Every structure is written in C-alpha cells, then in structure tokens.
C-alpha cells in the first residue's frame, strides 16, 4: 500500500535545506511509517512512502527522489537489496539505512555498496532529522557547484563568441586600414614603359604587427609605406595600424600642402610617432616615393631588411637602409634615390621574411637572394619561400614587388587572330607551338598556359569585339542565347585582338609576359574584385587566369590584360 503526501509548507528547526528536495520513505511497519511521515511531511518538498522494498523500487523509478530513507528488514526486498537495485540504474541517490541489526556483515556490505548513512533502530527522531538535513546540505552544495560550473561554461562560451566577433571586427578594420590603390593596375612610366605593384601580406595572428599602404598621389607619383612594429600581438598591431592610418591621412591631405617632399612627410610622421609610441618602442618601416616618369624612387628605410633590386640583365643588388628604427626621440632623417633605368624589379620586405626559419635550419635570409634571382615574380618567390620554411611558426610577413612589365628580351611573339572562336583557338595553338620551339615547357605548364590564354582571348572577344557587356551577358545566359551569340554575332567595326608575348630569360627561371589587347572599352574597375561563387555568371574567366598564372594586371587604353607566368620547367609542380 502506498501513501503519498505532497506538502508545500512545513516547519522545523532543522534547516531549510531539505525543503528543496524530495524523499522516498520505505518502511514495512505501518506505525513507524505513519509516525515518520507525520514528522517529515512539510520538511521536504514531497515525501513518497512505500510499504516494502519492491514498492520502494517502483516508486524510486517513477519519482526519482533526491534521498531514500529505508528500513533494512522488510519482506521481499531488504533495504540493502533495494539499494543494490537502485545502484544498478546508474544513479547515485543517497540512501539512508535504518537497521536494528549490528551484524558486521550487513554493515560491511552496506558500506561497500555506498550507503550514505546508518540510523540505528529504535531510532532517535532528532538523529534521523539531523542525518537527512546533513545529506540534504551535501546534495545542495554539489548542485550549487554543478550550477556554478555550468554558468562558467556558459560564460566561457559567450566570451568565446564575443571574442570571435571582436576579432573578426578587428580583422575587417585592419583590411580597411591597409590600402593598395594600384592592385592589378598597370602604371605608365617613362618611354611608355609599364610597371605593376604586387603585395603579399600574411598576418600571423588576427591582428598583424605589419602594415602597408600603396597610394597613388595627386601628381601621378606613388607613395608606398611598409611598417613592421616592434614585438608582436595587440601592441605591435596597434602601432602598425596607427602608423598606417596616419600615413593614409597624410596622403589624403597632401594636395593641401604648399610643397611636398619626402623629407617633410617624414618629419611630420616622426612628430606623430613621438606622441604615439611608448618610450621603449621602435618602428621598422620604409617610405618609397616612386616617380616612374623620372624612372627613380626616393627611399627612406628605417631598419627594414635590405631591398633587392634586379636589373634587366638579371644582376641583383642589395640596397641597405639609411636610418636606424624610428622611436620617440628625434634623429636625423636620411633618404636615398634609386634609379629605375635598366631595372626590372624591386623587392621590399619585412623581417618576418628574412628571419623565417628554414626547414633544414638557419634563416631564410641565407637563401633569399638566390631565390630572388630564380623567381621573377612575387608568386614564384612565395612558392619557394613556402617550400623552404616552416609553415605556421612564422612572424607576420609583408612582401612588396615593383615590376617592370615591358622588358627588351631576346624572344618576342605577336599574333592577330581572326575574330571567331576557331580563329582565337588557332592563334593560341600557334603561340604555344612557337613557345615550345623556344623553351622547355612541361605538360602542366603548357596546359595551364592554354587555359589562361583561352580565358583571356574569350574575354577580349566577347567584351572587346562583340561588345557584350556584363548586363547583356547575364541576360543572354539566362535566356540560353549566350553560346549562339558568341558563335554567330559579327565583331564590331574596327574590332581587333592582339596577342603578344615576351620571354625574359635573365632570372634563373624565365618569365613569360603575355599581353592580350583589344580595342573595346576595357574591364570595369571592379572586375578583379568581384567575388565569384556558385551563382556568378561572370568573373570566372579572370578568376581562372589568376589561378593558373603568377600575376595579372589590367590597364587601358582599350582592354588590356598583362599576365605574368614563371616557367619553372617542372620545378613548381613537384609534389
């Protein structure tokens, strides 16, 4: 027979701990059971009573009480039997055993199976209450600890999400501060010689201790800034970003200056640093005022690794800096001027590159110059750097590469295709045939070049010769007419495509410079910044060209793509 009492109220001197809990009372003696119930009712949130061990176990499964108070001697299941069955369910509910026996065997077994407490019979009710209250406090303490732990885990989770959001926001800000006005753009210099600037920027952490900015000035010159702040982490990153921001601010207001010289620019920068840096902080950085019309660069290097300057004949010079690192203390500011006449390319880097650890030991500066001699593009140099150094353990890395795009070289090729898909294809084949006759090409390079040229020629054909703009292309694809138009539409009057190529052999690995020119309107400014995804109907051709070449520049008049590819002769494809 079961009697169940649920009481919300009750009074006792015996603490309030029990009031939050439920109790299962198992006792076959009706009188004792009633007496206990009368005293315990109200002290617990609920008291369930059972008349024997079997009923007790059933109620245990049904009500999952917080504490079990059971008699030992009962018909059917004894108190210990009940305890064993409870433990078989995998729960750790404390069980208090009431027993008149002082049999050592029973006591030992009870201890072994984890009885929480004993209450001797005939019992002293105060002792029963004290025992239950003590167990109740233990339970509540454990629960408080669990709750606290759970809250801590939740807090950590929240902090993790919060930190991730903060980090992402910081990264976005960093990308906003570093600038490259001339990414993928062709720059015109003296005698119609064209140049391009590539940057590789690899922060080690979310926030980078390096920074850079490549800006086109109001007078047609370019001003470049590279910075490597002392130390690492947030402090270095703040310094790098503040410096870069100030540089950008100055550049944006240069047109208001009465006269602009690099030295004056540096003085103002130094003034700013004297208020921004901490006493012990220093800054490695470089300023480069590029004047392609005069074919010269004015430099101010503050403890940056030496520049590497290569002439068109392949010879390489190291250019050491003029100044110690910048700090808060005033110092003399020195600049130098480099002539770009007869020069092919210039490499600028932060010490994360030169100090990177080589896989076989030592630092990358030991092989930097020989790698630079072999690699005519930034992408080719990066491939070498990656293959030689320990990835994942490096400092922040910034590499900047100014490259001449028009070079007098021993081998030049030019083709003007018929303006049809078969005509384009024929010219590509003729070019590849001529190139193979001139230099060793491995199969992969050959096929990559064919993909690059296919994409570039079709791009020139559809935009420059057939006059298909972005909007029309989207419409034609949606209507399923695009392929037909490409095959059947006549070229615009005066339309033409010219494919020209130069093979520059001065570096250890030759550089192929391809130019695909049409007399259409040229690519829109954002053509190379368009994200390509599964829904895009344009931009994939340029994406493929970039994937299979080292570098890509665009620039008018008309549509012009200049594509650089190092011919590694198989070295780049070894796995």
């Amino acid at each position, binding site marked *: 027979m079961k009697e169940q009492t649920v009481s919300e109220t009750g009074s006792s001197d015996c603490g309030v701990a029990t009031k939050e809990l439920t109790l299962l009372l198992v006792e076959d003696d009706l009188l004792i059971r009633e007496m206990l119930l009368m005293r315990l009712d109200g002290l617990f949130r609920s008291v369930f009573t059972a008349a024997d061990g079997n009923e007790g176990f059933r109620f245990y499964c049904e009500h999952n009480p917080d504490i079990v108070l059971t008699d030992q001697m009962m018909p059917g299941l004894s108190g210990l039997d009940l305890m064993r069955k409870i433990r078989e369910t995998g729960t750790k509910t404390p069980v208090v055993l009431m027993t008149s026996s002082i049999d050592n065997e029973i006591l030992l077994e009870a201890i072994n199976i984890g009885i929480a407490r004993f209450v001797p019979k005939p019992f002293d009710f105060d002792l029963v209450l004290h025992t239950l209250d003590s167990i109740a406090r233990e339970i509540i303490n454990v629960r408080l600890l669990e709750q606290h732990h759970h809250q801590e885990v939740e807090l950590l989770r929240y902090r993790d999400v919060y930190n991730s959001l903060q980090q992402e926001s910081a990264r976005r800000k960093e990308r906003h501060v570093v600038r490259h006005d001339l990414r993928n753009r062709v720059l015109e210099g003296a005698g119609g010689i064209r140049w391009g600037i590539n940057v590789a920027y690899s922060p080690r952490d979310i926030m980078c201790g390096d920074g850079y900015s490549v800006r086109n000035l109001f007078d047609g010159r370019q001003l470049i800034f590279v910075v490597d702040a002392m130390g690492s982490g947030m402090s270095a990153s703040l310094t790098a970003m503040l410096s870069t921001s100030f540089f950008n601010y100055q550049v944006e207001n240069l047109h208001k200056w009465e006269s602009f010289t690099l030295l004056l620019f540096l003085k103002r920068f130094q003034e700013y640093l004297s208020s921004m840096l901490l006493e012990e902080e220093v800054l490695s950085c470089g300023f480069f005022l590029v004047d392609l019309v005069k074919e010269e660069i004015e430099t101010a290097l503050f403890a940056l690794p030496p520049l590497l300057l290569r002439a068109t004949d392949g010879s390489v010079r190291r250019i050491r800096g003029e100044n110690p690192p910048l700090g808060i203390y005033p110092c003399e500011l020195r600049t130098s001027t480099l002539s770009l006449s007869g020069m092919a390319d210039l490499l600028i880097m932060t010490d994360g590159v030169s100090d990177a650890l080589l896989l076989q030991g030592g630092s990358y500066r030991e092989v930097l110059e020989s790698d630079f001699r072999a690699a005519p593009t930034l992408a080719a140099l990066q491939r070498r750097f990656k293959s030689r150094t320990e990835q994942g353990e490096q400092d922040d890395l910034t590499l900047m590469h100014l490259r001449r795009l028009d070079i007098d070289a021993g081998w030049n090729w030019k083709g003007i295709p018929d303006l049809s*898909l*078969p005509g*384009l*294809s024929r010219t*590509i*084949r003729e070019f590849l045939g001529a190139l193979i006759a001139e230099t060793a090409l491995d199969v*992969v390079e050959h*096929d*990559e070049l*064919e*993909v690059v040229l*296919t*994409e570039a*020629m*079709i791009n020139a054909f559809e935009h420059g010769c057939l006059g298909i703009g972005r909007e029309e292309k989207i419409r034609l*694809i*949606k209507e*399923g007419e*695009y*392929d037909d138009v490409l095959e059947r539409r006549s070229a615009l009057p005066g339309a033409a495509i010219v494919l020209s190529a130069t093979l520059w052999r001065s570096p250890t690995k030759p550089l192929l410079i391809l130019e695909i020119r049409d007399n259409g309107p040229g690519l829109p400014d954002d053509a190379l910044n368009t994200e*390509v*995804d*599964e829904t895009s*109907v344009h931009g*994939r*051709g340029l*994406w*493929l060209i970039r*994937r*299979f070449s080292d570098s890509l520049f665009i620039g008018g008049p008309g549509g012009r793509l200049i594509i650089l590819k190092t011919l590694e002769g198989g070295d780049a494809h070894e796995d």
Partner: protein
Amino acid sequence: MKIEHRGNRELAIIGNIKSIEDSLEIKKALDALQQQGARNILLRIQDSFSMTSTVIGHLMKLVNLDKITISLIVGDRRLYELLEELNLVQPFNVRFSGE
C-alpha cells in the same frame, strides 16, 4: 581531350579541358544528351586539373535554367579544389574519385 559517350546520360572526358575546342565539344556533347531527353547527366572527368569558364557557365545553365541534374566525378584533386573554391561542389554534385 577526348569525350567518350557511355549510354544516354553519361560522358567520360579524358585529358585536360583547356582549349576553346574542348569547351565547344563538351557543350555539344552535353546538349546532345539533353536533346535525347536526359534529365540526369553524369560527367566523369578522369584526369583534367582544370575546366574552362565556358564549360562551367554551360553546366550552370543546365542546372539552373534547364533544371538538369548534373553529377561530376573528378579524378584530379586540383580540379576538385578548383570547383570547391568556386562553391560548385554542391550544385554540380561533385565527387572526388582519386587517391
């Protein structure tokens, strides 16, 4: 590059997809299957490391405009990675069979 027709809903492409002719041939072969009534087309691209934008554009037209189910089994990891970077693994049901 060579195209092998296998049944009325499967093409196997052998060699690299790289030229204008390759693109046109693949487009023609796909259109032919579509005209024969294929609603599910399986393309096995055994060893190409690339795919031209023309072929990608045509496959997208088949999937999005003509509601044809395309499945690609590619054998070269570089092509799989290329399609992955363009987020085309799902729309083209791309599976990598190499290694």
